[in-house]
């Protein structure tokens, strides 16, 4: 049962092959069995899940079921879930029980999905390997020595190991796409503003966006349809009609113009990954698409630009964690300064502190123009590169990450090398565009991700292009031996 896609589970539930309760029970069993070794959950909500499953079955018996009713899922622990611990992977929020549901949680509840638990993640979504989590690193199902990527590493790992059929993630600089690539699943970061950020604990507000992490493009399309839409509680959420993202999955890709940015195939790209991506592109040619060489001349500036803007925003966003109203508070503070210093000093991990310091520095008087303002100007140039590219092509493709999953501990002492693992994904966030990663084979037993970037609000096309690839190939069906 656990090898089925969401689309298949949905059909099975509809046909009465199994109930949501049975399905939920089966997944919970599997999580109990395999979850610990992967360290992929922070919280498992078994009782609530079974209750929700019963309710879903009841709705179905009343003829009120939608396509996702009764389908199990997991939320990244960055989404506030009412009455359930919402830690954001941090000691700071280890004791935080959210008093309300995030907009995404509300929508998926409304769609009838059954939450099995909250997945592990890099602390406050800051990391590319899931090693910064207060709850310890998540393991990659393909090799327990390897990282799953980050920051949505738990959400990628649970889907790759088939502990959950689908999950939510968030992507600020590649945090959905990079772990999807490293774990061999399908992940989509929507256009900035497509999905409400309300109740999603902010890392970098102008870059954060939630999206689905799934086995297939079709499954991602199903969940994206339910997740998206205007929310008056998020001023940056765009009031724009939500299409049925499954409607155009089977459109032909004949004549599709795929832009191949030369900057994505230069130095630093692992040869095996390059070969796998080239092979995937040839597959598209076979499907009738046309490959067009393009250039994104400023993409080389995306990592430094990102590492000014994201830390600047995070330094301010994380100020609310001060030990006063919620979250971690140090023992016996002697005065206010002591309360602040020790609560934050003890509650945050080293990567979070590093970024808060970088950000506070970049925003400080005398440096603001040289860093923050300059970074915003470059951000505009990076967006313009894409704008020009999309005048010539329909989608842009390349590798999601420069290498396959690296080993735990391999890059953790070298932040800059770690930051470079997001070199192909970050520009997409800076421009606010939708991006996807789909499995494109294995190199030495570890998955490779093919990244596809669409124009604003062109998620339908991305999903269609990904789906056609998955109709023609079996890469997305690869599952690590131990989790088959």
């Amino acid at each position, binding site marked *: 049962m656990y090898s089925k896609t969401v689309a298949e589970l949905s059909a099975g539930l509809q046909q009465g092959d199994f109930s949501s309760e049975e399905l939920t029970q089966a997944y919970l069993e599997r999580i109990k069995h395999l979850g610990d070794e992967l360290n992929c959950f922070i919280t498992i909500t078994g009782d609530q899940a079974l209750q929700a499953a019963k309710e879903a079955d009841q709705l179905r018996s009343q003829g009120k079921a939608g396509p996702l009713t009764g389908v199990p899922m997991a939320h990244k622990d960055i989404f506030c879930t009412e009455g359930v611990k919402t830690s954001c992977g941090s000691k700071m*929020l280890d004791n935080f029980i959210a008093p309300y549901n995030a907009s995404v949680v509300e929508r998926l509840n409304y769609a009838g999905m059954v939450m099995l638990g909250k997945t592990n993640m890099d602390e406050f979504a800051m990391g590319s390997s899931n090693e910064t989590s207060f709850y310890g690193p998540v393991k990659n199902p393909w090799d327990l020595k390897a990282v799953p990527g980050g920051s949505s590493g738990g959400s990628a790992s649970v889907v790759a190991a088939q502990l959950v059929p689908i999950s939510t993630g968030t992507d600020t600089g590649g945090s959905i796409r990079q772990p999807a690539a490293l774990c061999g699943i399908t992940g989509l970061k929507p256009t900035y503003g497509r999905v409400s950020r309300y109740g*999603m604990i902010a890392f970098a507000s102008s870059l954060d966006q939630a999206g689905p992490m799934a086995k297939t493009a079709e499954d991602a399309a199903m969940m994206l349809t339910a997740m998206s839409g205007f929310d008056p509680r998020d*001023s940056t959420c765009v009031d724009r009609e939500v299409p049925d993202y499954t409607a155009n999955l089977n459109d032909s890709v004949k004549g599709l113009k795929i832009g191949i940015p030369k900057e994505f195939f230069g130095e630093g790209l692992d040869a095996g990954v390059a070969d796998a991506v080239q092979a995937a592109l040839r597959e598209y040619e076979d499907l009738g698409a046309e490959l067009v060489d393009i250039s994104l001349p400023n993409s080389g500036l995306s990592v430094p630009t990102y590492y000014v803007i994201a830390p600047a*925003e995070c330094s301010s966003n994380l*100020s609310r964690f001060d030990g006063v109203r919620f979250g971690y508070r140090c023992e016996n503070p002697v005065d206010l300064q002591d309360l602040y210093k020790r609560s934050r000093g003890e509650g945050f991990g080293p990567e979070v502190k590093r970024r808060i310091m970088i950000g506070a520095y970049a925003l400080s008087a005398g440096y*603001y123009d040289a860093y923050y303002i300059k970074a915003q100007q470059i951000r505009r140039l990076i967006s313009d590169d894409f704008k020009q590219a999309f005048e010539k092509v329909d989608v842009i493709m390349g590798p999601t990450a420069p290498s396959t999953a690296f080993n735990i501990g391999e890059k953790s002492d070298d932040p800059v090398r770690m930051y470079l693992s997001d070199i192909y994904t970050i520009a997409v966030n800076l421009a606010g565009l939708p991006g996807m990663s789909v499995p494109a084979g294995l190199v030495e037993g570890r998955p490779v991700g093919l990244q596809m970037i669409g124009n604003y609000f062109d998620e339908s096309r991305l999903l269609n292009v990904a789906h056609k690839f998955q109709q023609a190939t079996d890469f997305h069906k690869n599952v690590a031996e131990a989790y088959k």
Partner: protein
Amino acid sequence: MGWEIVIGLEIHAQLATKSKIFSGASTAYGAAPNTQACAVDLGLPGVLPVLNKEVVRMAAKFGLAIGANVSRRSVFDRKNYFYPDLPKGYQISQLEFPIVETGNLDIELEDGSIKTIGVTRAHLEEDAGKSLHEDYQGMTGVDLNRAGTPLLEIVSEPDMRSAKEAVAYMKKIHSLVTYLEICDGNMQEGSFRCDANVSVRPQGQKEFGTRTELKNINSFRFVERAINIEVERQIDVIEGGGEITQETRLYDADKNETRSMRSKEEANDYRYFPDPDLLPVEISEAFLDEVKKTLPELPHEKKTRFIEQYKLKSEDAEVLVSSRNQAQFFEDIVQVSGDAKLSANWVIGTLAGMLNKENTDISGSPVNAEALGGLLKRITDNTISGKIAKEVFEAMWQGEGSADDIIESRGLKQITDTGAIESIIDEIIMANPDQVEQFRAGKEKVMGFFVGQVMKASKGKANPGQVNQMLKQKLSS
């Protein structure tokens, strides 16, 4: 050597919206601590601000009223600092692109001349909560009811040259924001408060002296006192060979002194940057036109009309229009009494005196405009004299009924019957032959004595004009 004083004010006017600037929580004053703070006000993880449209409307109204530029595009910034009553660790404010830019306001100086004060800008921001230091055994309590209350910070040019000018400007802004109904103006509750930037320089010097900022002054009287005492201190320091340090100072009303809070060196680096959770505010012409239509008659317009329509003196009109309620009260009285000058005198004199004594304003008057108009009507139709009217008014104030009821029940009706007055006059003349002699000898001053005697004998009910005229006739015959 003479010193010139330079003052600029930053006025914080709390906007009179029902809900907060970025959340749906109520802004009502005086609720139990933390009962009016929702998830957004508490700065819970994951929450986001959403701008209250009414706040924009009110700011635009203010901008239009001072002839300022209402920015078609303004931007909210984050001002970052840590304090327990600042839940998010930053205040959402406007730095570089405020909603209102460059307007001005005329104030009337004591000598009756007009001075124009520049308004540099007015920007929107959220208020912080309150830290409560009492009653917590060495701990500090935090009440976040006020957190997120909308404020309009109105920043003047350093155009004022005395504490009196500063007070006149502050009163003018106070009157304006209450006219516009964008602020309740309640200074005790902190709805209207100000910071004053004060410096001195030798007469004739062009450059400004080093300024200090006096924080959070919440009454007109304190503004005047705080500025004067600070000016004195600055002059003392300079004349003693010292230098003024740029710093923030607190005015202590009990001790009538200012003392240092923090110097420029200790000042926070607020790390301002545009708030990525909020889009720039764009104001359309249509929106502005709509707001324009809701502008009431402004104080200076009302004043001009009062002078023309009611033939009032400029000073009287100025006082009457200082509050919209008072101006309305006046006009309502005139409707009934029919005598504008008399009505103005009563509102500015007797009524204002009573209100002052009871420490309330016109909205707290136990005698409403119609009732007071009814009383004044009895003066104009000669039923009672002005003096008796004051007695009647006091009875009305005590709730004894309408003017007519009181006049009736107390028998205060003026005697206009010539026969009755004539017999009183005859008696008085008979009883005072010496004074009659004096009058006839040309000493007209004794006339006052006779009027007084007649009024006394009539218990004040005789019409003084009539008494005067009849006395003259009798004494001259």
